[in-house]
């Protein structure tokens, strides 16, 4: 099996890195991600559990938003069915799941709302809680967060 051999070699090389800190990190990170052997060929979408995983995650995400005093008021007028569908489509597209997002772009959607930095972080924390609830490993969480973070510029204070 070629891939597992090169993976093992990669891991070995990592552990033989010259500094103690590097080794410590490798060990700690190894221990933390032991529960989910990260296959590099998997898309982020697959690592999130594919269609079922993303569906569950966006459901929990919206639940967390609805429970957060700082942000829930914003969605009073929102068609939650559509919002859920659009969130799911967008997450699927962003994570390489092959969907086409049919909603409005982030700038248009949030324009005129004057969304604050506190609210944006509130959304990020809601997503973090939803990911924690779905036991999504830290490395996968970080990849998803890194996809959403750059949207800050289009969403906040518009």
């Amino acid at each position, binding site marked *: 099996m070629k891939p597992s051999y090169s993976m093992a070699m990669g891991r070995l090389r990592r552990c033989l890195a010259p500094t103690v800190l590097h080794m410590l*990190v490798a060990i700690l990170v190894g221990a933390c991600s032991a529960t989910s052997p990260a296959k590099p060929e998997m898309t982020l979408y697959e690592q999130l559990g594919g269609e079922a995983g993303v569906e569950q995650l966006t459901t929990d995400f919206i639940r967390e938003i609805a429970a957060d005093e700082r942000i829930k008021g914003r969605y009073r007028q929102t068609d939650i069915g559509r919002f859920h569908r659009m969130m799911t489509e967008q997450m699927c597209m962003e994570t390489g799941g092959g969907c086409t997002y049919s909603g409005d772009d982030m700038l248009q959607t949030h324009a005129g709302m004057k969304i604050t930095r506190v609210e944006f972080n509130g959304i990020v924390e809601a997503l973090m809680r939803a990911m924690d609830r779905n036991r999504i490993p830290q490395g996968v969480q*970080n990849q998803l967060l890194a996809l959403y973070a750059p949207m800050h510029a289009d969403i906040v204070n518009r």
Partner: protein
Amino acid sequence: MSSIIRASMLCLMLSAVAGTLQAAPGGRLIATGGAMTVEGAAGGGIVPWALLAGYAEDEQFGGSAWYTQVQPKDFTMQAYGAALSLHNRVELSIGKQRFDIDEVIPGEQLEQTILGAKLRLNGDLIYTRLPQMTLGLQYKKNDTFAIPESVGARDDKGLDIYLAASKLWLDGPFHRSLFLNATVRATRANQGGLLGFGGDRRNRLSLQAEASAGLFITRQWVLGVEYRQKPDNLGFAREDDWYDVFLGWFPSKRVSLVAAWSDLGSITGLDDQTGVYLSLQVSQ
């Protein structure tokens, strides 16, 4: 007189922090307030970062109260203080250090008080491509100047000026969040100011480089290293650069704990001052 002013400022800042503690912590993400340095600015343990203390966003107040103990081989250092941050733009801090030098002069200790201010110039730790940049000042007053003076220090007060740049990459190496900070500081302080300011060997401001790196194993746990270059102004004993390796724990936005292994080099002629560093902060 000035000690009364300083004591009442500390009380004021502590009560301001305590007062705001009744509300939920501010709107920045967890750990983005960093820890508190031994000099009272938000940062690592020895390097001030571009972050501001606590969790205040642009429309909020925040801050941190902290206590730190460092246990190098032959000394004990205790430090505590509080910082207030306004609208994620300005940080005001006060810190007090007590450095027990019993091994060198029985029964004696060095003390100083540090008033700090920081201004965030631009950028955001996470959301902008450019790093967050902050300009900082530390006005330091040595409260036990007789000892530093007797070994060649020129002044009991000094002003450190620094520029810090900090950046967090959410998806860094090993898909962990990577934090990097670089700071340059103009200073005349000897051992941070505990041995006064300026000296017989050199009495000018000098530029020193400082850096920190941290990798978040999870959102709660960060493992990192720090380096702080130091001047060497006094002839009576060599002064070394400082290093540490730290583990930070952020169980919530409210509290954080930092444990570190610090290498403070040679202090007042006693070499190899390595030892444990422990710090607790309560934040808003």
